[in-house]
């Protein structure tokens, strides 16, 4: 009887020490819980659909952040990973009859390989050159997709593949926990030594090299990791909408990832997740349902909202909120609530 009690006490201590000390983390935890119990509040299929797709895109946007926000390798063709995984999953499912639990990881592996294909030649490029070169890959692949309609079904795309699961609720409980878990993993990666090296590469690659870091290897690692997570998102998406078409490689999808990430705040991981979870339902549900916006005008209004938010919070929404409510301890670099006088860990004076 005492073992479970001990675990519960430990969990509670952990929560109090790591989560409740910061309002931002408390809010994040509450949002996670809310998302997990959401079907209790409403089971309307359309709302669940919007939330599922939003959470898939949240994984996608966060994976862009891992590569471009942290490592500074601005990728304009992030849809490549999404599309490669979606097509791989769809083709494997349709031709070999593999189930989603097998095709999604295999699609992610294909996306990792795509990450290598992009990463290796692009190692020599930097900055704007890199951004514009990565833009080319998904668009070239679209040409290939059109060129071999026997495999890819050309313009129409592959449809009629197996659904993610039998019911909407089950799909919801696949997509949302996946998003939360993968987001947490990415956040942990960005917080680890590897994440620190990614950061160092963004800030100053030559200095990082001079400190004995094999930057080539870490840049490739960033491409592969980002490909992996974007690939999982692509596979989930293909199976959820039961189709994989050229729109998964579209230029606008690549741009969307950047819009969500920058709107939320780059180099944070939770920022892009928040960006996708706010903007996608806003565009596809809230504006239409609650503000009676005709569906032709919703993109216009979303673009204006993004523009206005970024004008006043140029570093993104969550970054702005974080800077308003928290400050960093000058000695141990931990986040503290803005109204504290002393650091919660090392008791150094906060300025």
């Amino acid at each position, binding site marked *: 009887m005492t073992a479970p009690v001990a675990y519960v006490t430990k969990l509670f201590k952990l929560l109090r020490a790591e989560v409740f000390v910061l309002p931002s983390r408390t809010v994040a935890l509450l949002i996670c819980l809310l998302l997990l119990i959401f079907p209790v509040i409403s089971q309307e299929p359309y709302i669940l659909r919007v939330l599922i797709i939003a959470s898939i895109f949240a994984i996608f946007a966060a994976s862009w952040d891992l590569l*471009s*926000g942290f490592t500074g390798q*601005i990728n*304009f063709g992030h849809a490549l990973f999404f599309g490669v995984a979606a097509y791989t999953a769809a083709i494997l499912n349709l031709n070999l009859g593999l189930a989603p639990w097998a095709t999604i990881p295999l699609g992610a592996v294909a996306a990792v390989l795509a990450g290598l294909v992009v990463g290796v*030649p692009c190692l*020599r*490029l930097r900055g*704007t*050159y890199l*951004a*514009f*070169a990565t*833009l*080319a890959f998904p*668009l*070239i692949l*679209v*040409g*290939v997709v*059109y*060129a071999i309609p026997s495999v890819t079904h050309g313009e129409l795309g592959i449809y009629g593949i197996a659904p993610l699961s039998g019911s909407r609720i089950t799909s919801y409980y696949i997509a949302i926990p996946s998003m939360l878990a993968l987001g947490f993993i990415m956040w942990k990666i960005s917080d680890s030594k590897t994440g620190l090296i990614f950061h160092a590469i963004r800030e100053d690659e030559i200095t990082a090299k001079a400190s004995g870091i094999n930057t080539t290897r870490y840049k490739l690692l960033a491409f592969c990791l980002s490909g992996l997570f974007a690939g999982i998102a692509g596979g989930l998406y293909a199976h959820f909408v039961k189709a994989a078409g050229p729109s998964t490689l579209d*230029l*606008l999808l690549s*741009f969307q990832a*950047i*819009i969500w*990430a*920058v*709107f939320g705040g*780059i180099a944070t991981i939770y920022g892009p997740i928040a960006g996708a979870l706010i903007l996608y339902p806003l565009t596809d549900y809230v504006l239409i349902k609650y503000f009676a916006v005709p569906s*032709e*005008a919703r*993109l*216009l209004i979303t*673009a*204006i909202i*993004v*523009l206005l938010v*970024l*004008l006043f919070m*140029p*570093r*993104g929404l969550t970054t702005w909120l974080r800077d308003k409510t928290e400050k960093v301890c000058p000695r141990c670099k931990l986040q503290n609530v803005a109204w504290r006088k002393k650091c919660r860990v090392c008791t150094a004076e906060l300025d």
Partner: protein
Amino acid sequence: MAENIIIYGLVSSGVYALLAVGFSLIFGVARIVNLSHTAFYMLAAYLIYSLTITLGLNLFLSIAIAIVAVIVVGTISYRLVIARVRQHEATTLIVTIALAIIIQEAILKGFGGNPRSVPKLISGSTEIFGVSVLNQQLLTLGVVLLLILVTWLFLMKTKSGVAIRSTAQDREAANLMGINVPRIEMLTMAMSVGLAAIAGALVAPLFVLTPGMWIHPLVMVLAIVVLGGLGSLQGSLIGAVILGFAETLVVFLAPSGAFLKTSVALTIMLIVILIRPEGLFGVKFEEERG
């Protein structure tokens, strides 16, 4: 066949060159990646359409009004929006994409998604070496050549041109020499948008107008400026010719594979920058001082 390839190749290279030179100018001077550049080109084409067809104005007058209006919209959006976030590179990207989407959606709302077309400025065709060429195409080529010459002379010979080039080379030194850098940036933005608007006026009679017509040229312009080397004007010109002809060759030699034209052009761009990472005529930008 070969004559057609040359004519169509020259026309599309010319239009791409105008767009790429404008894009390259504002990138070189203000380090702004203006992803809404081709949206201004589309805006000009649609303004001409609405002024001539809907309001029934004279075509020349409406072209002039459209170009001025687009320059005004471009500089205002630079002043009010882009200039305020330009220290944040990623934010600038999104703000310009948002501008482009706003223009696209406004056009979609105003004109609907149906393809539109604008009457030609001059009708008829001329025989050159036994090939009949539309006069509109000749006009387009002439205007493109003239404009590029004027831009080049402006940049090389006038005082403002020298100021633009020195700001592009080194902002801080230019500022210390008494050049009003923000004003030069506004001027460059006006020039850049103006070139895009003229390109829009030139293609409006040749192509059909759709609210999605900015995306393909945007991709091509990004490929061209990288191929030619960022910030280099002759690089943009040569890049435009290479990719313009590459696209035309694919369309004419393999009509059934016309959908591959973007892929082929982008593959050429990738091969070139993998061999020469700074493009054909890349200038090494001085790192910004901390």
